[in-house]
């Protein structure tokens, strides 16, 4: 299935979830979609719906409340899927890692495939990050859950 494998890399649809992000990373993710950076060149669309998405882009650190949401969104994405953690917060919690309501980086909850450092990372860096994560999309892991 060469063509499918090839296509996977050419059409990574993203779903963006803002955990504890301060919006800085957030708007930089959105800025990637705008004419100046236009990630649709790579087939990237922000679909907003985990069920359609291939790449989960997470900005910000994880707290007690959004951890369950993050988990749930990830659960609803079909394999193959990748997770990109954006910004210092997404990677480790950054400047907030000492806060009482911060669990830490995204990797506390999900397996992360690419870490994008910076605060806030530039759109260029975010594009890099998504591209880095693409290799994860090539292989398709099957997670056998119960089938009704």
């Amino acid at each position, binding site marked *: *299935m060469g*063509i*499918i*494998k*090839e*296509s*996977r890399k*050419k*059409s990574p*649809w993203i779903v963006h979830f803002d955990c504890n992000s301060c919006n800085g990373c957030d708007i930089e993710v959105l800025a990637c979609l*705008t*004419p100046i950076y*236009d990630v*649709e*060149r*790579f*087939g990237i*669309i*922000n*679909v*907003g*719906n985990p*069920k*359609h998405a*291939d790449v989960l882009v997470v900005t910000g650190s994880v707290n007690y409340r959004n951890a369950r949401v993050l988990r749930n969104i990830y659960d609803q994405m*079909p*394999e*193959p899927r990748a997770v990109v953690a954006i910004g210092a917060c997404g990677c480790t919690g950054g400047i907030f890692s000492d806060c009482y309501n911060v669990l830490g980086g995204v990797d506390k909850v999900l397996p992360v495939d690419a870490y994008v450092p910076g605060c806030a990372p530039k759109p260029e860096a975010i594009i890099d990050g998504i591209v880095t994560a693409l290799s994860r999309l090539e292989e*398709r892991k*099957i*997670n056998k859950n119960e089938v*009704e």
Partner: protein
Amino acid sequence: MTEYLLNIDMHYAYIILLTIFVGPVVGGLITGIDRKLTARLQGRFGPPILQPFYDFFKLIGKERFAVNSTQMIYVIGTLFFAVTALIMFTTGMDMLMMVFVLAFSNISLIMGAMSVRSPFSKIGAQREIIQMMAYEPVILLMVVGIYKITGSFMINVPFNSYGRPLIADLPLLFFAFSYILTIKLRKSPFDYSTSHHGHQELIKGLTMEFSGLQLAMIELTHWYEVVLLMGLVVMFWAQPIWAGILLAIGIYLIEIIIDNICARTTWKWMLKMTGIVGLGTALTNIIWLYLAK
């Protein structure tokens, strides 16, 4: 005529095969060009033209998961009936029946969306029903208008035997049809039930709960539908055929432009406007035909 109809020979087999296989290629290309052009209109670089196909193949290769085990049946239903409608079109059958079959395709999708408990897909389905309520009458009136001047419901008549371009007699109906084309193509300002860009209150609405292969098939259905709708546009200027194709290209361009210069409105507004503009013009045209007789 009856002879012609009843004669099932290889001729049909070829047409059917051609429809099934070439249809989506054309549809996909149209979508690709649409996306590229849209990007350019927004001052972006845009995706490659083959992007829809990448998307399609990627979706096929995704993990198959569903919210319930019946979803796939509805998806097959919608795909099948869309293909059937297109086949009915290419083999020149009854237009009215084709419209019904197309509606069935749509209803199948609605059923699929309603078969899950997700609020977004359910509300999307409700809106889709409302949209259907808005555009079905116009399409039916279009069919009637065509019947009025050609004396037949058969699609092959305007293509083969009726000499004049339909648009000469049905300019207003053509306008009404282009108007609802925006609804059918799910373009702004009428993309209520699902939009190309998921940034609306229902996210992806109708297609919310379909993923992977199912979504790919819905996309495929959409391509067939696009081809069919464009075919209907061509029908308005079927002789010479290139004029019709030019017409279709022109209409599609206008659709893209409209998509880019309009905000999404609300369905109440759509109902009102389709009632006034769509039905109004279509009716005017038909009444005019009656009077002209």
